[in-house]
């Protein structure tokens, strides 16, 4: 009886406040960002067998960063991970820059790899965890590519290698048709090219 009463009281109050449902309306910016991230995640899934599982971003004012996370069911090394990352970032950047509708909402145009966050979580074929000590996460965040393992001693994530997107491009040029490479090469540090 008490439960029923509680339910009725709550229902009464909640029905009075149903206007609050419409208090939040996603902006066109949010809708466009969702549309593009979904399109890109599908494209990356089809192209590289990257399984999307999470999205995010930074877009309180302008769109400053868009993020996608993927699972990749294969044990790979840094070389392969680098290739996956730079191609994924490139496709993401290209998709954003090619969609004119979203340009007014971008914090900077053209959108650059530093505005993209791609995280690739590696798993075995059966979706179980990668053996500690082997490459577990490859990510591109704020223009920095980072490769993490699970430290067998501490059982914690540990970065084993970091490089800038520009450095990664030199080591592994984009294999995907791209326009981003041009943007990057404009800003590239000549010192890196000399190495």
């Amino acid at each position, binding site marked *: 009886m008490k*439960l029923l009463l*509680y*339910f009725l009281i*709550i*229902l009464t*109050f*909640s*029905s009075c*406040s*149903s206007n*609050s*449902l*419409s*208090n*939040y*309306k*996603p*902006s066109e*910016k*949010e*809708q466009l*960002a*969702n*549309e593009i*991230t*979904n399109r890109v*995640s599908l494209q990356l899934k089809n192209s590289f067998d990257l*399984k*999307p*599982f*999470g*999205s*995010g*971003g*930074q*877009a*309180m004012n302008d769109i400053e*960063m*868009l*993020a*996608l*996370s993927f*699972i990749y069911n294969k044990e790979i090394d840094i070389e392969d991970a680098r290739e996956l990352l730079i191609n994924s970032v490139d496709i993401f950047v290209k998709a954003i820059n090619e969609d004119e509708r979203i340009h007014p909402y971008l914090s900077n145009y053209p959108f650059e790899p530093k505005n993209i966050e791609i*995280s690739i*979580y590696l798993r075995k074929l*059966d*979706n*179980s*965890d990668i053996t500690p000590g082997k490459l*577990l*996460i490859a*990510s591109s*965040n704020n223009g920095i590519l980072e490769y*993490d393992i699970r430290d067998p001693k501490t059982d*914690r*994530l540990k970065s084993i290698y970091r490089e800038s997107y520009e450095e990664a491009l030199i080591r592994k040029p984009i294999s995907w048709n791209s326009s981003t490479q041009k943007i990057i090469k404009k800003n590239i540090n000549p010192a890196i090219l000399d190495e």
Partner: protein
Amino acid sequence: MTQDLSPSTFASSKHFCLEPEDPFAKDIASINAFRNSSQQLQLYAPPQQQNKIVIGQYEQALFTDKIFKTSPSFWGIESGLDIDRRTEENLQNCSTVKVEILASPRAPLRMSLERSLHKIARQAHSISSANFRTFPSHHRNSAVHDPQTLCLPYRRNAMTTFQVPSIEFAAAKAQPFTIRLSTHHQMELRSMSEQNLRELRAIKVEMILSPNRELFSGFDQDFTTRMAAKFFRKAPLSSTLQRDSSHLCTMEEVRRLTSGYNPKIFISATNGINTTEAEAASHQLYVQKLAGQKVNWVYNRSHGAILDLMEVFTMNYLGLSPNTAKELRGKWSAFHERNLGNPNEKLLHYCHSQGAIHTFNALRCCPSEVRDRVIVVAIAPAKIIPREMCHQSFNYASKKDIVHYGELTTAGFFDSSETGSSKYMEIMLNNREQLILLDPHPDAKNIDHGFQSPTFRDVIERRLKKYLQRGNR
């Protein structure tokens, strides 16, 4: 310097908060003392300061016949388990442990306590038996029928009080302990008869933490939650927590936690439905262990699965989260105030399941400058946190999970349209585009909705790592 922290002070200043309002407040007034004490999950003694902490104080009012009839050994087993779960390392962090037992004025209390005193005295070489203030003087001549058993006399209309040892650990700090106080006390408590339990007025356990030390204890978590569960005539809670020692930290972890403290870093979190305090504490420590930092866990109180679900569909999805959202807003605003001069300082917030709805509702009511401080990581969210609502947001859910469909149900039920999709439904559908589902981990259980599911471990840890890298810059 010794500072006595009352439960209320503690609740407001430490890492574990209960919702201030409770629809059953009147009914459970008598167990508030238990609940307050149960907030002391992770205790941290600031440098140059000692904190006197009452770990448990159990009042007679709850020892009703009903409870003991349903579970005759309830008290002994529960309290024994809890004490037993303290690690030996925890004792090293205590400068004083005092156990005070208040017997009922009605009858003598028989307890075999002396044995433990002698054992402790023998094993802790640095502590002489002279340090034991065993019993008040008027008990000195009490009839001790058996050297292993203490029989306390009683005085009518007066409560009998004695202190089972007040042990000064300070002298032993320099050397490792070999005593196992917890085991002995567990034995003693378990050896209490049901009759003794009925005569017990209260047990009060105090620990004084050494400066700059941390105590991790599941001391009375299960006890209080089980007591509350029985009070509400609910089924006994899952016993898995009794076997799970994951909420206890090793000394190494304690060191890591205390040494890596960075005031610029702020991690908050809130749980979903049907989560007991002990489970929330377990989640808190799970994140805390990964982070090596304090986690401010705002406990989203559970009233059981059914009531919680009613709350979700009739209040939370409609934008009402009076208690938890208020608590979250308070914590975020305080962080914002502390960092007014530095807009780049951000806080990381984890939300799980229903906690995501509370987070959404809290964000919606926050000014933009506070929202711009918050990085949200929503794990198996019941509501998607849009990226334009806060500084950054990330949503993760498993393919097996069904909880995220909840908001669609609500949208359809409360704001339906006969001619097409309602405005609210369209909003929901658009937000849901941010949710990309993850293949479950092979070890994931049931619908893969748990906060500590292996599916989400890497994600939680990586987000923490990124945040800490940012905070330590």
